[in-house]
C-alpha cells in the first residue's frame, strides 16, 4: 500500500544493492569467495552472512523468506520467485525464516520494513527477488563456464543443473557450489535477461505451501504452542480503558489458587499480571482478582452510538474542525460550483474486531540480569517485535533474540508499533526471572481489541449539463488509526495523515476530473488498528454505494455507468466485463437481487457481483452467490489467489452483515463469539472466482475482495427492494428500518 511513495528506480537500485552487499560483504569480511551467495559446508554459517540464498554441495538450496506466515502464503511465494530466476529445482529448496534485519530483508515496497501487511509482500519483493535470483544463477553459470573452459553463452540451465549441450556435460548446482568462487561485485542483469512469462516453471504453477501439511496433522507450531524449559504461565487482568491502571488490588482469593506463583501490578497500563504453574491456574486466579481502575479522562466517557452522530455531523461540516487533505485531482470540490446538478450521500461503518483464531499470546525469557531476552510471538513484523522488546526492557536490540512462529491469523492485529501482545510476557518474565507464556483469553482479546475505526462518510457529487459525473467530494470522519497504531510512521513518512483510514477514497481509475477526499480525524481514546482491507472497506462501502446511487438516479445501468467511468483503464473494464459475464449481469431480471462493486486496490483490479435474498419480515439478508473477477498482475500462485479471494469474501461478508463492536462509557460491549458474530459455514455463499490474465507486476491479493462485499450487497438491496442501506453492518434491525421508510432512495 506504500508503493505509491517509492519510485520504481529506487526498487531497482535497492535490488542491486542487496545483491552487491551480500557478495562484497562475504569477500571483505571473510577473505574467501564463498558465503554470500554460495555457501559450501566449510563456509561460515548463514546467520553470520545473512544471505538470501545458500547452496550446499549436497544440492540443498536454502532461501530466506522475510514474510510472516499467517495463512496468506507469501512465506512460500517469496522464495519461489527467487527460485524461478535461479532456475532451482523446487524440491531442493528449503525455506528459512529470515532474521529480523531490515537492512537486508526489509520490503522495498513497504518503506523497507520487515512487515507483512497491506497485501504488499509479493508486490514489494517481486522485482528484487527475481533480479537477485538471476544474479545467483549468473554466478553459477560463470563458475561452470570457467570449470569447463567454455563460453557462458554456450550454457543453459535446467532446474538445478547447468548443461553444456555441445559436449553433453552437466553439473548440478550442488556440485558447482563445492568449487565456486564469487565475483567481486554482483553481476549485472538486464531486464531482458530475466525469464519471459512463457519460460516460467514455478510462477503461475501451484505449489503446496511449505507449512500446509503441518496444519493437517496438528504439528504446526504457533507461539501458543511454544514450550521452554522452566516456563510458567501468565494471565493479565487488563484495564477497562486504554489509559487507566489499577487503583486498588485485592488478590487474597487469587493467591489462594493452587499453582499461583506471583501477582504483579504492571506498569504502562498493562494491568495486573498473574503467574502460575499451569494456564488454568493462571486463568482461575485472574478471575479471582478484585481490582478497581483509575478513571480515564478520554476513553472513559466514550460512547460509540453518540459519537457516531457526532462523526456524521463532522462529515457534514456542522462541527467546525480542520480537515486534513488526503487526495485531490483537478479543481477538487470547487468543481461543485459549476455543476448543474448535485447529489449527496451519507454512510456509516461501525467498529470491527479482527477475531484472529489464535488469541494473542507470547513467550518471553528474560535473562536473570535483565540484560537480554529471547522471545517467541506471532507478529506481522519481526523487526517491530525486536524493537518493542528492547524498548520495553530498556536494552539494546542486539540483546533480543527473536524466534519466528506461525501466526494463527493476523488480519492487521499483529502489527502495532508497540506489539502490545508481547509486553506482558516481557514484564512478567523479568519479574519472576523465568520464561513466561502470557495467554489472552478470547474475552481478553476482545476487551483489549484494537479495532477497525468507526467512520462517517459524506459524499457530494456534481454533474454537468450532459449528465456526466465531473466532481466528487468525499469527507470522512474516523478515529485516527495511524496515530494510534504506528506513531513512528504517522509522524514520519505518513506526514500526519491517517493513511490507514483514508486509503480507498482516491478513485484513480474513474474518469472524474475534479476530486477531493479529506479527513476529520478524531482522537477518541479508543484502541485501533489496521484490519483486513483497512480504509478500503469503509471507504468503498461509501464510494461504490454512491456510484450506484448516482447511476440509478440517472437511470443508467450500474455496470454501464462504471464502464463509462473506467473508460481510460482497460484492466478495470476487463474485470467489470468478466464479472458481468460470470454473473450474467446483462441478462438479469429486473428487481432480482444483484449488486455490483468495483475497486482499484493499490493497482489490483477487482470487481464483484452479489446475488442476495432478503427476508422482509425478519430483515435478514442472505448472500446466495458472489462472483469475483480479479486482476492482480502476474498470478504467482493462482490457486492461492483463489483461496485468498474466497477467504477475503467471507471476511467482508461478516463486516457487511453482522460484525459490530459497540462501546458504552468507555467499555467494549462484546466479549466472545456469541455476541461478536462472525461468518460460519451456514452463512457461506457460492463463491466464484476468476483470475483475469494480466502480465503487469503483482499488486497484491490478500485483502482485495473484502471491501467489495458490503457495497455489492447494499447495491443488491437497492435493486431488490428499492431502499438504500447506509450503515454497516447491515443488521436486520437496520434493514427493517430502511424497509419501513427510513431511507428511501
Amino acid at each position, binding site marked *: 500500500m506504500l508503493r505509491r511513495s517509492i519510485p520504481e528506480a529506487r526498487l531497482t537500485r535497492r535490488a542491486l544493492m542487496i545483491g552487491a552487499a551480500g557478495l562484497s560483504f562475504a569477500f571483505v569480511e571473510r577473505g574467501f569467495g564463498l558465503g554470500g551467495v554460495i555457501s559450501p559446508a566449510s563456509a561460515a554459517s548463514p546467520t553470520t552472512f545473512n544471505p538470501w540464498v545458500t547452496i550446499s554441495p549436497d544440492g540443498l538450496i536454502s532461501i530466506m523468506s522475510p514474510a510472516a506466515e499467517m*495463512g496468506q*502464503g507469501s512465506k512460500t511465494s517469496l522464495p519461489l520467485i527467487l527460485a524461478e530466476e535461479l532456475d532451482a529445482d523446487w524440491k531442493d529448496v528449503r525455506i528459512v525464516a529470515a532474521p529480523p534485519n531490515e537492512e537486508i530483508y526489509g520490503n522495498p515496497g513497504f518503506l523497507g520494513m520487515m512487515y507483512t501487511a497491506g497485501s504488499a509482500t509479493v508486490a514489494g519483493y517481486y522485482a528484487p527477488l527475481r533480479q537477485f535470483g538471476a544474479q545467483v544463477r549468473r554466478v553459477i553459470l560463470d563458475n561452470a563456464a570457467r570449470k569447463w573452459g567454455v563460453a557462458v553463452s554456450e550454457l543453459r540451465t535446467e532446474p538445478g543443473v547447468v548443461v553444456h549441450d555441445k559436449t553433453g556435460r552437466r553439473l548440478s548446482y550442488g556440485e558447482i557450489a563445492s568449487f565456486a568462487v564469487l565475483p567481486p561485485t554482483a553481476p549485472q542483469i538486464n531486464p531482458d535477461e530475466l525469464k519471459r512469462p512463457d519460460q516460467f516453471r514455478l510462477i503461475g504453477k*501451484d505449489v*503446496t*505451501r511449505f*507449512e*500446509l*501439511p*503441518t*496444519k*493437517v*496433522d*496438528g*504439528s*504446526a*507450531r*504457533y507461539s*501458543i*504452542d511454544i*514450550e521452554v524449559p522452566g516456563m510458567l*504461565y501468565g494471565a493479565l487482568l487488563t484495564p477497562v480503558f486504554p489509559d487507566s491502571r489499577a487503583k486498588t488490588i485485592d488478590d487474597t482469593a487469587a493467591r489462594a489458587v*493452587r499453582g499461583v506463583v506471583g501477582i504483579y501490578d504492571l506498569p504502562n497500563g498493562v494491568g495486573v499480571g498473574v503467574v502460575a504453574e*499451569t*494456564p*488454568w491456574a493462571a486463568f482461575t486466579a485472574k478471575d479471582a482478582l478484585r481490582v478497581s481502575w483509575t478513571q480515564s479522562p478520554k476513553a472513559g466517557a466514550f460512547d460509540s452510538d453518540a459519537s457516531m452522530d457526532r462523526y456524521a455531523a463532522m462529515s457534514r461540516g456542522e462541527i467546525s474542525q480542520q480537515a486534513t487533505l488526503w487526495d485531490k485531482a483537478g479543481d477538487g470540490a470547487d468543481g461543485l460550483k459549476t455543476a448543474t446538478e448535485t447529489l449527496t450521500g451519507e454512510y456509516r461503518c461501525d467498529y470491527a474486531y479482527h*477475531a*484472529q*483464531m*489464535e*488469541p494473542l499470546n507470547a513467550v518471553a525469557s528474560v535473562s536473570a540480569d535483565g540484560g537480554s531476552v529471547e522471545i517467541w510471538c506471532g507478529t506481522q513484523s519481526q523487526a517491530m517485535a525486536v524493537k518493542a522488546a528492547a524498548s520495553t526492557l530498556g536494552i539494546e536490540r542486539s540483546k533480543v533474540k527473536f524466534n519466528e512462529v*506461525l*501466526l*494463527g*491469523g*493476523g*488480519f492487521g492485529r499483529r502489527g502495532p508499533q508497540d506489539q502490545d501482545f508481547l509486553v506482558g510476557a516481557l514484564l512478567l518474565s523479568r519479574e519472576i526471572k523465568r520464561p513466561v507464556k502470557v*495467554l489472552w*483469553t*478470547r*474475552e481478553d482479546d476482545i476487551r483489549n481489541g484494537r479495532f477497525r475505526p468507526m467512520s462517517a462518510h459524506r459524499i457530494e457529487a456534481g454533474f454537468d449539463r450532459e449528465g456526466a459525473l465531473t466532481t466528487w467530494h468525499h469527507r470522512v470522519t474516523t478515529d485516527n488509526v495511524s496515530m494510534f497504531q504506528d506513531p513512528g510512521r504517522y509522524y514520519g513518512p505518513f506526514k500526519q495523515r491517517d493513511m490507514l483510514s483514508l486509503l480507498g477514497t482516491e478513485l484513480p481509475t474513474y474518469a472524474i476530473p475534479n476530486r477531493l477526499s479529506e479527513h476529520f480525524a478524531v482522537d477518541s481514546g479508543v484502541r485501533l488498528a489496521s484490519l483486513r482491507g483497512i480504509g478500503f472497506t469503509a471507504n468503498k462501502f461509501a464510494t461504490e454505494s454512491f456510484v450506484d446511487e448516482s447511476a440509478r438516479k440517472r437511470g443508467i445501468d450500474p455496470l454501464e455507468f462504471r464502464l463509462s467511468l473506467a473508460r481510460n483503464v482497460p484492466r478495470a473494464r476487463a474485470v467489470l466485463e468478466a464479472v458481468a459475464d460470470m454473473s450474467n449481469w446483462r441478462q438479469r431480471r429486473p428487481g432480482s437481487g444483484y449488486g455490483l462493486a468495483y475497486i482499484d486496490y493499490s493497482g489490483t483490479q477487482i470487481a464483484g457481483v452479489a446475488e442476495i435474498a432478503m427476508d422482509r419480515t425478519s430483515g435478514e439478508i442472505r448472500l446466495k452467490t458472489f462472483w469475483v473477477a480479479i486482476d492482480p498482475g502476474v498470478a504467482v500462485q493462482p*490457486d*492461492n489467489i483463489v*483461496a*485468498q479471494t*474466497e*477467504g*477475503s*469474501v*467471507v*471476511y467482508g461478508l461478516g463486516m457487511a452483515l453482522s460484525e459490530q463492536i459497540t462501546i458504552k462509557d468507555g467499555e467494549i460491549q462484546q466479549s*466472545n*463469539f*456469541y455476541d461478536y458474530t*462472525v*461468518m*460460519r*459455514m*451456514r452463512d*457461506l455463499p457460492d*463463491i466464484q472466482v476468476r483470475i483475469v490474465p494480466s502480465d503487469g507486476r503483482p499488486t497484491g491479493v490478500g485483502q482485495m475482495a473484502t471491501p467489495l462485499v458490503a457495497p455489492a450487497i447494499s447495491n443488491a438491496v437497492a435493486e431488490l427492494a428499492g431502499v438504500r442501506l447506509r450503515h454497516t453492518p447491515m443488521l436486520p434491525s437496520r434493514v427493517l428500518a430502511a424497509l419501513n421508510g427510513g431511507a428511501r432512495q
Partner: protein
Amino acid sequence: MIVHFTVNGSPAEADAPPETPLLWVLREHLKLPGTRFGCGAGLCGACMVHIDGDRAFSCQTQLSGVEGRAVTTIEGLSKDSTHPVQKAWLKEQVPQCGYCQSGQIMSAAALLQHSPHPSRDEIVDYMSAHICRCGTYPRILRAIERASREG
C-alpha cells in the same frame, strides 16, 4: 485429582483440579498442542476432539468427566495424515492460517464416521459449530465431499 483415561490409544493420567478443561490437560500436561484454544466457550470448535468416538469441545469437557474414556486428538487421527479427511484436506489445499483446522478435521472425521455420505445440508449444519476466520469454508466443504466420495 488424578484421572485415568486413554489418549490416542495409549493410557494417560493427569493430576489437575477436576474442573480443569480437557483442552489444557491435553495441551500442557500431555504435550499434545495440536488441539487449539480459540474461545474457551464452545463457540468456535478449535478445540474439537473425539471422546469415545463422538466429537466434543475439549474446552467444555472437564477433566473429571473423562475418567476411563477414550480421547482422540488430531495427533492420533492417523499416523501420517492418511485418514481420508486429512488426505482430502491436502488435496483441496484447505488450511490458510491453519489454527482452526485440527478442530475442523476432527469434526469432519466424526461426521463421516456417523454419516459416511452426508448431504450438503448435513455437512453445513454439522460444520457450523466451527469458525474459520480465514474463510476456508468453501474448501472445507469440498474436502468433506471428497473424503466422503473417495473414502
